[in-house]
């Protein structure tokens, strides 16, 4: 390969199109625009087709309904499979399994970035780490505060350090300075700064080999189940290429599940289910939210990108590009518990859900990064590139358009099709067929509700049966939640990216009731 064409990964850690110029800018912008253009093209296309060629629009809608039914069935099979694996993994004694390995050299660096969250939330997370069945002296706790959050978080951090310092092997507090040029204030820039501090202050000082450290990038509300680190260590040691993989647990939102409103619960569990499905499709799996990665790998790729929003999934693509496609995510099928969206009032909760979903949907910014780097990196095979292109584009398109096509645009041919179409059998069959297909599709929710109830903490009070029924019935909200808190925020995020109105990082406020 000529020197000029050699791919230099470090050169192309792009956050957004505006960081480039010339042809590269145009190319990057094209990939930023494409997902939004496809989604809008579909929505506008469906409306225009309903107006001018309603018969073809109706045929498309019927075919699409059937496709969606089968797709849902297909995904449900994955969900069921992963559910079985989670239950099996939860029952497994990972500490016992670790006996077959030499593992005492493995350290766990736990990144806990926080902003303005309550003391109790930080405390509970640290307590859960103490309850882990793993040698706590092998834990390096990095409590990563933000300078821009003011003094109170720093006081909490100092207090936590005082309280827990002796319990763990290492405990450091880092304060991410405000206003570093080229950075986007958010989780990515904070943990990148913190990881480097931890390297200097702990790893180098104590001469801990980078390859022996597994970094778990958590949120401040991430509560680990007691065998999480044992499970993670086992998977790391059993991996064929342990430095070419990230480890992904299943995020369940159990911390405050009984206090959150039904809409919040359904949205939260829908996210969990999507992750469970993806765990069964390893080649489509990218890191999301809380994840773990070997420090040596992290160091080689330059930590998380600090100039963009969705650093949690970008770190996977960074590694993928750095190692020329030789990188995978290992699905752990083991849960970590986080907070479902909950605010002081119902409407504030709804707003927060929307904002959080929009931020997650803004993961579409990765698409431009992937495609742009594919063009630069010739070491990755074309077929591999095409598959990733298709899988990602289809994923963003589905998220933004499928619920709208099914629940809203399905009626367009009848509303806009005109008189001739409205006297046809097809026009009259359309709502009945759509309704029947949707009813069959909704039966998949029975499985969803069963899985959700099984993953929830036990309901202890006398009204357990009534509550359990209620927690199953809440799944009837799915048509609303996937449209209002799925498709619409996704369209919103894609449209912003399309027009170059880049989003900043929005920190989801954490709130728990008295029991939380």
């Amino acid at each position, binding site marked *: 390969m000529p020197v000029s064409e050699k791919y230099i990964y470090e050169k192309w850690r792009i956050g957004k199109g505006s960081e480039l110029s010339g042809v590269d800018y145009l190319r990057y912008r094209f990939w930023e625009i494409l997902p939004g253009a496809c989604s809008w093209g579909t929505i506008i296309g469906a409306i225009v087709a309903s107006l001018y060629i309603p018969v073809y629009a109706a045929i498309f809608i*019927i075919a699409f309904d059937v*496709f969606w039914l089968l797709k849902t069935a297909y995904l449900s099979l994955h969900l069921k*499979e992963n559910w079985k694996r989670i239950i099996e993994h939860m029952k497994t004694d990972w500490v016992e399994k670790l006996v077959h390995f030499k593992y005492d050299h493995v350290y766990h660096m736990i990144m806990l970035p926080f902003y303005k969250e309550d003391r109790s939330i930080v405390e509970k997370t640290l307590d859960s780490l103490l309850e882990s069945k793993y040698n706590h002296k092998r834990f390096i706790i990095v409590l990563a505060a933000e300078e821009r959050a003011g003094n109170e978080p720093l006081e909490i951090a100092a207090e936590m350090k005082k309280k827990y310092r002796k319990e763990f092997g290492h405990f450091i507090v880092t304060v991410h300075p405000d206003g570093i040029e080229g950075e986007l204030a958010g989780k990515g820039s904070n943990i990148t700064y913190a990881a480097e501090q931890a390297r200097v202050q702990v790893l180098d000082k104590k001469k801990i080999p980078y390859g022996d450290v597994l970094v778990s990038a958590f949120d401040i509300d991430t509560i680990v189940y007691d065998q999480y680190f044992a499970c993670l260590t086992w998977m790391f040691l059993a991996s064929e290429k342990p430095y070419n993989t990230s480890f992904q647990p299943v995020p369940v939102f159990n911390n405050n599940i009984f206090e959150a409103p039904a809409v919040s619960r359904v949205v939260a569990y829908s996210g969990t289910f999507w992750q469970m499905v993806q765990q069964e499709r390893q080649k489509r799996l990218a890191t999301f939210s809380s994840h773990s990665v070997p420090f040596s790998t992290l160091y080689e790729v330059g930590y998380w990108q600090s100039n963009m929003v969705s650093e949690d999934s970008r770190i996977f693509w960074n590694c993928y590009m750095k190692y020329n496609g030789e990188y995978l995510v290992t699905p752990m099928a083991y849960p970590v518990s986080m907070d479902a969206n909950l605010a002081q009032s119902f409407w504030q909760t709804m707003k927060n859900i929307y904002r959080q979903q929009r931020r997650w949907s803004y993961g579409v910014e990765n698409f431009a990064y992937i495609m742009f780097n594919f063009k630069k990196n010739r070491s990755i095979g074309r077929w591999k590139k095409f598959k990733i292109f298709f899988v990602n584009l289809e994923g963003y398109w589905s998220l933004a358009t499928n619920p709208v096509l099914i629940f809203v645009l399905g009626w367009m041919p009848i509303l806009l099709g005109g*008189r001739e179409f409205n006297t046809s059998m097809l026009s009259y069959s359309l709502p009945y067929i759509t309704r029947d297909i949707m009813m069959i599709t909704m039966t998949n929710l029975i499985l969803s509700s069963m899985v959700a109830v099984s993953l929830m903490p036990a309901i202890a009070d006398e009204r357990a049966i009534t509550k359990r029924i209620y927690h199953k019935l809440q799944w009837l909200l799915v048509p609303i939640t996937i449209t209002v808190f799925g498709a619409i925020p996704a369209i919103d995020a894609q449209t912003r990216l399309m027009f170059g109105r880049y989003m900043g990082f929005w920190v989801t406020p954490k709130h728990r009731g008295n029991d939380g």
Partner: protein
Amino acid sequence: MTVKKQWMYIAGLTLVFLVVIPVILLYSFGYRLSSDFRLVKTGGIYCSNDESDVSVYLNGKLKKSSGMIERNILVQNIKPGNYHVKVVKDGYRLWQKWIKVHEQKVEVCFPLLLPKDLNPEEIPKYLPLEGKPKKKKPKRELNDEYTEIQQLFKKSRKPAKNIFPSWNSREIAKLKLGKNRKLKEKVFLEKSGKRIYVRWTGKKDRLPFFINTMKRKRVYSSEKWISAFEFYPKRNDAFIVRFIDGSLYAVEIDTRFGVQNLYRIVNWCDSFIVDGPMLFYFQRNKLYKIDFER
């Protein structure tokens, strides 16, 4: 899940998709399998009803009934041809029509279902006297409802004017609405002697099935003079006529298939008005009301 298993599922579901789609599409287009296993094209009849619990009969055979909640009925799988359609509901007058069904088309009908017993209720002019009768003749108190309706009768003689002009007020002004010219949801009715004419004032692609032409069309002609008419309560596909002899009839606009249903409402009255779901009429100085939503 293993990749092999995934591919098996994908292959299986793709096969299901390829088999199911043509079947559903053919069904949607009105194709059905005949007794000798041939594909035949069928049509349908759609009854847009105001009432629930309605049954539809074709050529005397019960085809479909709506439940307690559902109102509209789609009768499918009908071979092209002429059918005598009856729409039946307990306690209501029979609605019937001859309908010609075409292949892959649905004929839409809007049955005008009228209760057998309309239960007219008198609105007294004065409120009943309270307490013991006194020696002196007491002053009687006027019933507000009566007064309000009396006002409505007075108002109905003048064409209504909106406080805020609507976007199409020019077009409406051209119609010269009044005693003999009425407009409801783009359906324009005009009385001329013994005849009533209809015209659709909306866009062509929104033309209702019960009018079926953009031209002015005669929808009713009688042997008796028509003294007044109004749109039927809460419907724009039917109207109420008062003949010179004082009788009131409900008439549907739909004249397709040569049948027009017509029902007597009141044997005799001096005048009448329609307000929302209510019909009010005077018999001499007595005022009555009929609630069509009851």
